[in-house]
């Protein structure tokens, strides 16, 4: 871990980045290429402006990224914390007082009512007034201020000034308003190396369907129940855009094997794996094996004249385009985005490397892996079990994840018949809490989709009890 962290401490072109606004909800994972205009949750900046800077906290002024010291955040936090030692009402009064002092445009009629208004939240007290209609600062004003390099907190103060309705709001809507405005105009962001946590979060909130609704907690359960650690031999079917593959390869740490079963002639549609930018040593455990080889029961040559599967033409095309946009392509190689008919020397070399890896993978399958992971979206797990389960070593772990319960029930039945043991079928609710002084509650709404997890251990069919009975006098 140390090497990879110290190796490239500055951001450069070609790397994948994870971008998250401070107090933002979503993570964006993308590859940094020259002249990229980045836009994310109302945040806009030139990609070029981060090149050569260290990963971390940035402030964006006039669409340029400037590194920001964390101390700045701490200072602000301490200020805020010292004032929030008082009950909320005091904070609110301060804010109101400040607003009233700074501006003349506020109608004074309802001040008293607001100041005396209750501290906490009641939904029925929430007025559903339309903010924008009452906002005196126009959109143009705001943009102009931003162009001039006004900081976020200054801007929010101005917005609060300009909002006539502000002091007729309840505390709930006031704090919500400040928060919303801060968020909308916040120009602070974290730019970090992608990690599985960030990639998982990014795809889950943006595109849960494409990763089979796999959430980080369930990804963790897959690894835990499969018992993934360095030097383990794992066979994997992955319909989660490479998310599970990336997690397994990372945990292997360069030692062990991760046989990745894929359709087509090369492993594709694994942007999550590519986003991790594993180095050569870590990647060495990644052994892609074609499904057609599994179905045929032997390694097949590459048929250069006729790809051994058909692309569903338009659908597939647009998918490739999208994947390019999502930076599925691994930088520095042509895999994934390259045409399927390769002629040059380098391509032939890569193909030979792939065939070598595949051979290793097929050998491992035949020798018996220690763990089988099926992370499925549409494929019936039983059709995979039928091919791979018989070859597993005894005592190996089997973990099946899927967004639907029924296929897992069928797999459960199948495994019961094969005498698998330690079988568990689980799902889990995952909920984020808002933790703020006097405003602590679970998030009011969030992504709730997930999947189910079936785990088991392969046991050897019972030995002849005669053999044992001979040894024990008091055998049952």
């Amino acid at each position, binding site marked *: 871990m140390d090497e990879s962290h110290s190796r490239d401490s500055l951001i450069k072109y070609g790397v994948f980045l994870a971008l998250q606004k401070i107090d933002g909800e979503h993570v964006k994972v993308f590859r940094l290429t020259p002249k990229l205009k980045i836009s994310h949750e109302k945040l806009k900046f030139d990609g070029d402006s981060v090149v050569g800077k260290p990963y971390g906290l940035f402030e964006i002024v006039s669409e340029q990224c400037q590194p920001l010291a964390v101390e700045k955040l701490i200072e602000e936090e301490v200020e805020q914390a010292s004032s929030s030692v008082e009950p909320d009402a005091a904070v609110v009064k301060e804010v109101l007082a400040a607003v009233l002092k700074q501006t003349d445009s506020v109608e004074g009629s309802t001040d008293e009512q607001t100041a005396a208004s209750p501290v906490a939240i009641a939904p029925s007290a929430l007025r559903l007034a339309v903010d924008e209609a009452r906002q005196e600062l126009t959109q143009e004003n705001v943009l102009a201020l931003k162009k001039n390099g006004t900081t976020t907190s200054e801007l929010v103060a101005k917005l609060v000034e300009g909002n006539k309705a502000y002091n007729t709001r309840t505390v709930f809507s006031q704090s919500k308003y400040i928060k919303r405005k801060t968020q909308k105009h916040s120009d602070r962001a974290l730019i970090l190396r992608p990690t599985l946590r960030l990639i998982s979060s990014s795809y889950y909130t943006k595109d849960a369907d494409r990763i089979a609704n796999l959430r980080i907690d369930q990804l963790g359960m897959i690894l835990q129940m499969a018992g993934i650690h360095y030097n383990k031999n794992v066979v994997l079917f992955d319909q989660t855009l490479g998310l599970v593959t990336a997690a397994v390869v990372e945990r292997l740490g360069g030692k062990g094997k991760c046989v990745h079963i894929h359709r087509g002639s090369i492993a594709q549609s694994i942007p999550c794996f590519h986003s991790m930018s594993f180095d050569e040593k870590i990647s060495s455990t990644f052994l892609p094996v074609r499904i057609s080889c599994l179905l045929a029961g032997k390694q097949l040559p590459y048929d250069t004249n006729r790809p051994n599967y058909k692309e569903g033409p338009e659908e597939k095309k647009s998918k490739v385009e999208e994947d390019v946009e999502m930076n599925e392509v691994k930088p520095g190689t042509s895999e994934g985005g390259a045409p399927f008919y390769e002629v040059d020397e380098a391509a032939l070399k890569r193909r030979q490397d792939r065939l070598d890896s595949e051979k290793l993978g097929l050998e491992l399958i035949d020798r018996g892996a220690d763990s089988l992971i099926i992370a499925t979206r549409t494929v019936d797990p039983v059709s995979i079990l039928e091919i791979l389960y018989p070859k597993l070593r005894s005592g190996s772990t089997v973990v099946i994840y899927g967004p639907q319960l029924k296929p897992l029930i069928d797999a459960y039945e199948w495994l019961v018949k094969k005498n698998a043991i330690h079988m568990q079928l689980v799902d889990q609710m995952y909920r984020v809490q808002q933790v703020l002084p006097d*405003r602590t509650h679970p998030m009011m709404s969030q992504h709730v989709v997930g999947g189910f997890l079936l785990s088991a251990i392969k046991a050897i069919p019972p030995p002849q009890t005669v053999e044992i009975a001979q040894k024990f006098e008091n055998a049952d």
Partner: protein
Amino acid sequence: MAKAVERLKTTESVDSNATDPNAPSFFKYEDRIEEGDTAIVYVCFGVTHAIVVKRGMTLAMKYGALRHEFIIGKPWGSRISATAGYVYLLRPSSELWSRSLPRRTQILYTHDCALILQLLEIKPGSVICESGTGSGSLSHALAMAVAPTGHLYTHDIDESRTKTVEQEFKTHGLSEVTTPVVQDVCKYGFFVSNACDGVFLDVPAPWEAIPHAADAISRSRGGRLVSFSPCIEQVQRACEAMRKFGFVQIETVEIVPRTYKVVQQNRQSLAEFNESGDSLAATTNFGGRDHRKRKAKIEENGAESGKSWTLASGNCTAITFPYNQPTHSGYLTHATLLPV
């Protein structure tokens, strides 16, 4: 009592039409729609409009214009064409009303309303106090549950809300069983004392209202208290106050609902997947590039979107939908005050 003096304002209910069995009412069960009835125009899942049917009026909505003329005399549950699509005409119920009412405040979810009624142990004849009135969504459910012999006193600090809900009660035939009151129950307590069977609180500082709730509940019958609060800190203070004022069986619960959509389940074998990919999505036919737009479209159609497809019998499954759902509304704290 000081209470009578401090009471801010009471709007007396007018019960002119309550004695007329043919007057418009949420309780009327005629076969056909009559002028003056409140009807729910059901456009599609999640889109409904409440109208009072009146000759000469026209409803403008998503599927164009609908002249009330054509509604009168139609059987309840009819499908009827507007200028740009068809809609259904439904009897009002408290559930449909809460979906259709003009929202003046955030309203309680149906699942919370449903549990609140259970926790109040409400039934015809119950006397209930509520605060705040808000948009009157729960008020309608409470009023319909206590009718015809019980009564609902619903309190709010906002006079305009109270006035509006009073008018709605009149239109819906609920005037006789309701009394909307403009009053801050945290400061001045409830309209009645030693009289009711249940109190529901949806106020920012329930702990301030709890002694008043204890006072409002009948001493000889005892009663139930239910308080709704979004934040755990409010719950903590409310529980403390309930214990202090002699409530027993104090319990705090929360509901996290989950809605499903019924879709075709498409499963493929490994060989089929190898041959044709997963262009066939796991359960639905949306996915790929434009899936966000398509998702939005499906969401609009809601749980009934299945209707537009041919559902192959027996091959269906239910998926969690939409992907983003409410995961918290509030904690419900309930308690009993014993008779003395």
